[in-house]
């Protein structure tokens, strides 16, 4: 059987990629449109980016979002890495099944359910809603993504290195810090970046768990979008796309180097 690209395979890949990228490309191009009318092309301009600089509320929302993304991604990276270690290195501990269930369920759980249930928890324990509640909510969701990414790396690396260190009398914690952690570091870093961008993007869970004074960027964009298309939103979205694209390319380069020709990361 001939292995190689047939015209059918090439067409389906090309059409698929065009479908995925064309709408984003149009959005980016129209963010540089000089005309106020979003559907009429009035020449190239960066006036909407300049307008963004003067929008104090938007700047504040962006700062809130970045703060929440940093805090929640840091927490998610620690929690997710621990969870991945627990799933791959500890064999069959008691309660392993419900544990792995709790790792995988949030990945597919509709966001409206996760958001509503976390909000009701915060209300029930009378926790002031705002920056910290959104951060906790995001850390809970994204730690599961981190766990999946780190676990994929832990599963396919050579255990004999750890065993050798232990046989030579290296204590477990030191083995982890000097042998295991450097080996899984690229996956951990990739997990952090994924958690960061997921948090930066989330609308639904943030809407439920936020409080007065902690409006995130997606919440702000959503309330604008409901009122119709505005050129300023095109500009904000283009900046967000650029930030996420850079983070993701960095993340995939990190995991690819670490996998060194192995199977691709699951995400």
């Amino acid at each position, binding site marked *: *059987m001939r*292995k190689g*690209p047939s015209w059918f*395979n*090439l067409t*389906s*890949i090309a059409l*698929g990629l065009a479908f995925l990228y064309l*709408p*984003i490309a*149009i*959005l980016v191009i129209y963010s540089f449109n000089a005309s106020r009318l979003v*559907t009429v092309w009035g020449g190239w301009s960066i006036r909407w980016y300049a307008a963004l600089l003067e929008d104090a509320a938007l700047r504040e929302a962006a700062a809130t979002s970045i703060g929440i993304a940093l805090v929640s991604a840091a927490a998610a990276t620690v*929690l*997710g890495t*621990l*969870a991945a*270690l*627990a*799933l791959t290195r500890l*064999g069959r501990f008691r309660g392993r*099944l419900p*544990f*792995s269930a709790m790792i*995988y*369920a*949030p990945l*597919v759980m*509709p966001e*409206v359910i*996760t958001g*509503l*249930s*976390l909000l009701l*928890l915060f209300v029930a324990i009378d926790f002031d809603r705002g920056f910290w509640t959104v951060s*906790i909510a995001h850390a*809970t969701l994204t730690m599961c993504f981190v766990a999946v990414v780190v676990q994929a790396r832990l*599963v*396919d690396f050579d255990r004999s290195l*750890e065993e050798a260190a232990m046989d030579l009398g290296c204590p*477990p914690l030191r083995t982890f810090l000097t042998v295991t952690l450097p080996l899984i570091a690229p996956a951990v870093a990739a997990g952090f970046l994924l958690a960061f*961008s*997921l948090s*930066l*993007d989330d609308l*639904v869970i943030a*809407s439920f768990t936020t409080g007065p004074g902690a409006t995130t960027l997606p919440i702000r*964009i*959503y309330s604008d*979008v*409901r009122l119709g*298309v505005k050129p300023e939103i095109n500009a904000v*979205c283009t900046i*967000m*796309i650029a930030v996420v694209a850079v983070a*993701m*390319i960095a993340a995939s380069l990190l995991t*690819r180097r670490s996998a060194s020709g192995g*199977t*691709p990361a699951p995400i």
Partner: protein
Amino acid sequence: MIGGGSEHRSWGDRLVVLVPYLWLALFFLLPFLIVFRISLSQTAIAQPPYTPLLDLAGGFGALREFVAGLSFDNYVTLASDTLYLASYLKSLEFAAIATALLLLIGYPIAYGISRASAKAQPILVMLIVLPFWTSFLIRVYAWINILQRDGLLNDALLALGLADAPLTWLATDTAVYIGLVYSYLPFMVLPLYATLQKMDDTLLEAAADLGCPRWRAFWQVTLPLSLPGVGAGALLCFIPIVGEFVIPDLLGGSQALMIGQTLWTEFFSNRDWPVASAVAVVLLTLLLVPIVVYQHMQTREIERSR
């Protein structure tokens, strides 16, 4: 800390499990129990807007009062008002048709990538994944630009002479399907690619040697072997689509709401938290079987690679 097979567990080992375990129990599991509890309470004009939860300080008397106070009124409301039933059915319909469309569109793409050269494959996979990390919100918003009445799609159709007058795309089911397929395509392509890529090429060679035409080899060898990927992709799309909110809210019409929108409206507009909780409990019950099947597949995958 990372000691594998030893029977005795050190404190470090315990900590590795306990910290994430407790976090998930507190912020993932416990909240569901609270949702369940509030779905059984009455709406109240108060802050928070539901009758009080169990007060443990009250002792046995409070417990009896608590059990007596449980009410199924919210579920009766859900069952008696056709709005909710219509909403659940609409969500299942959207999710089922969108998943079928995703399979039809995603399979050829995944197949194409799995046949590409070993060097091109990781790059193509990355190109498929990249848009997925841009927010739902932005990707859905991008389609508003295109689908609105004086948007680019109508401009293109008019210019090509395919339409005489601008067509209505926004606020229709078609727009929701476009948004769903667009947003979930990577979720379908990746699991399909993962199984197709692992497939043993010698099977196809054997089929070809025995005179089996290519289409028949695909139908009898490739497709059956890729069914685990089909199942994983379908579940990975179907489950979240049932509860989808952003896409139908921004692209869909107002006649038929999906259940995610109904929950959102009950919570944010009507401020009826108990009914919103009941909607969530029913939605979760609907999704329980697909979620358990998905979990089972994931766990099996992990156990195999260990």
